[in-house]
């Protein structure tokens, strides 16, 4: 489980903090348009900061609302009062340097962090208006409403068919025809049907990496979830497979709301409608993707998306 105590503290900012201010100091300020003062420095010092949220995102219909959400692994804090709405039917990307809490935030949505001993949360998270962390929430039922795809393709060691219909199997669906239809629909949705339709009974581990990841996407969408959570879905894939998955995300986003964590700035720019930039567990800037990549309000965001730090 990737969000243990070590991750939060063992990040690059030590190096960044030495280099970054110098760079800013030496470089003459290009214009007065960007807001002055280093937000990232403030974050590093542990001072309370306020996220810069573009007004466009607030007008959207939110499928998930995150309100002042904080998370602790034991005594170390991984998320600091994150507040952001996730738009319905759009792709929202979470970017930021390693350990900035994007995966933790993503995994908080379907409460996978519950499995780690010593995790504690504060704040609220709403899915379609219903709180996720209220007492008596059925976590299993909640996870059934959210599809999740992980960083590394993780097909189960069974046949392709069984992999896809796994969510239905655990719901007790036994009817062969229902399962077959659902399997075909999901595989078509994941653009994998043509490649595997003749060998549905073959072991899923025999597929290539890209196929495996699309299989995982098929598995995630077979039970028609309300939101699709993608945790760096392309980081273990080659460029061609990445392209296919990205095309797939674009297709899927017509049906589902997608929340995607990515390390790849170009990918975020290509697939997402909105982008959130996070740093050390704080939301730094959140807005339409064109704005974040083209004309961010914060200097730090610009430096990050143009690759000058992180």
């Amino acid at each position: 489980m990737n969000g243990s105590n070590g991750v939060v503290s063992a990040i690059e900012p030590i190096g960044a903090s030495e280099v970054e201010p110098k760079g800013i100091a030496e470089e003459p300020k290009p214009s007065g348009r960007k807001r002055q003062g280093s937000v990232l420095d403030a974050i590093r010092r542990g001072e309370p900061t306020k996220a810069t949220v573009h007004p466009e995102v607030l007008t959207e219909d939110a499928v998930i609302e995150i309100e002042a959400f904080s998370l602790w692994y034991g005594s170390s804090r991984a998320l600091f009062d994150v507040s952001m709405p996730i738009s319905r039917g759009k792709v929202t990307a979470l970017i930021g340097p390693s350990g900035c809490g994007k995966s933790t935030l993503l995994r908080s949505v379907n409460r996978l962090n519950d499995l780690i001993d010593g995790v504690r949360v504060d704040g609220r998270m709403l899915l379609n208006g219903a709180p996720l962390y209220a007492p008596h929430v059925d976590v299993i039922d909640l996870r059934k409403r959210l599809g999740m795809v992980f960083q590394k393709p993780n097909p189960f060691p069974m046949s392709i068919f069984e992999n896809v219909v796994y969510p239905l199997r655990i719901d007790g669906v036994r009817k062969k025809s229902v399962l077959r239809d659902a399997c075909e629909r999901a595989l078509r949705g994941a653009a994998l049907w043509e490649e595997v339709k003749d060998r549905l009974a073959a072991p899923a581990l025999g597929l290539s990496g890209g196929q495996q990841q699309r299989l995982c996407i098929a598995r995630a969408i077979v039970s028609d979830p309300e939101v699709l959570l993608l945790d760096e879905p392309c980081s273990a894939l080659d460029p061609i497979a990445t392209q296919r998955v990205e095309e797939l995300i674009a297709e899927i986003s017509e049906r589902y709301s997608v929340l995607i964590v990515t390390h790849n700035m170009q990918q975020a720019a290509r697939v997402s409608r909105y982008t959130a930039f996070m740093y050390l567990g704080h939301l730094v800037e959140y807005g339409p993707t064109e704005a974040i990549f083209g004309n961010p309000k914060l200097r730090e965001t610009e430096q990050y998306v143009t690759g000058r730090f992180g």
Partner: protein
Amino acid sequence: MTGIVNDIPVPGVHQRRSTPPSAFGEPSVWLMGSALLLCLGMVAVIIVLIAGHGFSTLWPRPVDRVTLRSGEVFLGMPMGSETFTPNEEEQARINALLKAGDLTQADTAGPRTRYRFRLGNRDLGRDSFRWVPAYEIASRERPDDAVVVERDQWGVFIGVPDAVVLRQEIEEPANTPFVESFEVQTPNGSHPATQRVLSETGETRVIAREVHVAQGPAETSEKIDELMGAARDRRDEIDRLLRNRIPAVQDRLAELNWAERRVERAAGDHDPAGPVWLWAITTLACLGSLAGAVGVWRALPESRSRSVALLAIAVLACGTGLHAVLERPFLRGTLTEQQAQVRLDKIAFDSSVAEDERETLLSRIKDLEQRDDTVRVEIVDPGLDRFAPVAQTKPEEPMRLSQARRVIHANTLGPLGRVRLYLARWGDFLSRPPGESPGEGGVFPVIVGTVVLTMLLTVSVVPLGVIAAIYLREYASQGVVTSVIRIAINNLAGVPSIVYGMFGLGFFCYTMGGYIDGGPGAAALPRTPWWLLIAGLGGLVVLAGLLGAGASTPGVLSGGRSLSARLVRSATWGLWMGAVGLAIYLAWRTPYFHGFFAEKLPEQPTFGARGILWAAFTLALLTLPVVIVATEEAIAAVPGSMREGSLGCGASRWQTIRRIVLPASMPGVLTGAILAMARGAGEVAPLMLVGAVNLAPASPVTATPPFLHGDRTFMHLGFHIYNLGFQSPDAEAARPLVWTTTLLLVAIVLVLNLAAMVIRARLTGRRGGGGL
């Protein structure tokens, strides 16, 4: 880092580092290779030794007729030779022979050769084996007429067939004229006959008439071949009646005897029944806890407290349920005098039927034996000039033909005949029960006992071990307690197996078995006021349920860190555990339960004695650590991404375990099972205490219901080897069979392992690509 930075003053000049001698790995590779070779060599030696000896024991050997210088003659099967250095006495004898000119000077010096012969003929007082120095042998030839007779008793007999005799005992009036020898006319010609008076009373006398239907080695052998089939058929029929039919009738009679006792106990007020209302309370408690389990299942979300609560309630239901089932007050002591009498009459009638059957069988056996008794065969040991007797106490009567299992013309046997004989002997060895003395007969029941034990052990240890491993790995929080438990389990694997034997005998056989047989009184368990127990149990359950409902709400994750919440949780735990303990104690106590087999006590305990079920449980305990450790490792090797993937799909923890973790760790589970089976099949020490015997009176598996008799003793190959080679009075004769039995044990372990490996390979293959 800094050093390197400082050492680059001149650009373009690279400093080369030298490779130290210790970097070369060849010597250690050689060392490791040699060690591996040594290990392989030792394994090879063991295999070659066991296989060589094991396979050669049953190979037919020729018979030598050896004449010694002293004039002594014997027949023996050569069993190899060795060189030895003569001691003073032997040297003196050699010198004397030299002086007499019987030995040439050439072979005076140096070590001497001596030969080993297998003699047989134990009933005539011969030793099983004999060493003979080469210089003592005057002549040595292979007579064609020598035969090896394999018998059911007294081992082999080596001799020369001399005559076939039809022997009859005739009672005739004393005034009939008596002749000692005369000729008898038969369709096959005339045969000499002799008569002998056995006893004489006033008017009648009993005479033994012996008709020699064949005489001389050639004619006798021919006659033996002619009569052998019929004789063996008679013997087999007698054996079948004695081994199967008679014991079955005896068992029925014994069962009826116990049934009679049971009725008498039920009729008399021997076992007081408890009050109905007490039974009603426990039954209600059982049903209540079942309902509670369903309630918890539905009400509580997926959490550790839910599984603990379920576990506790399950044990509770089992405890009270056992109490409710065992102590049905209305089913005891309800027989009126009249009903009892009716049943007793029925039992008496059944007994008389069974006894009639036994008489019929016995008379049939007697009849068969009488017919069998007439055909005798004289096979003579030429050295002693005596024939093989019918019994050691009757040296004047030749043996019955049916006593011979096979008569082998060892020296005239062709290669094909040898192979056929060899295979037939293997067939006998594998399919026949052991004879009365070790080294005779086969090992079939021993194989059955070993296999049944191993299977029972496997089916009891694997589920237990897998469940324990799953809990340890998947549910238990990985803290100090878990580590302590893990260390304890590993240490359990190091406890000497005899300790498990002691535990098995004390706990399984005497306590648990005693409880099943005769209730808590027989197992010497304490008695306490039961109503106090039930009240305490009820209180604990209610309290724990209330606390648990408060402590195990799903909000715990976000707010359950406070001291009071933790206190409540530990209190709940403690209460549940207390309730569980009380429930178990209650089930143990069952004050009005008098056992299932009380009527057989104290003479013949059923489960309260050594038996195959308790032996399997003891071995299961012994091999439990192996299974737990192997399964735990396999479960730990299942990547976390699989679990997350499954949970992310909305699967519950249990579904994830059942559908993802368990299938993926199946190869590891099977490895554990294989190790446990191999260990269990080879273990001897604890079995000696809890159930393995020399000669089991009955098989633990039968073709008739209930098929498996857990209370019966059994035979085990490991124990059989020990008995055969080292505990029998005639161990030396049985020693060759020790190798064969060892070979068999190794083969069985190998087959069990291979089977499990094949299953494992197929499992791994089906799941696609080398498991996980």
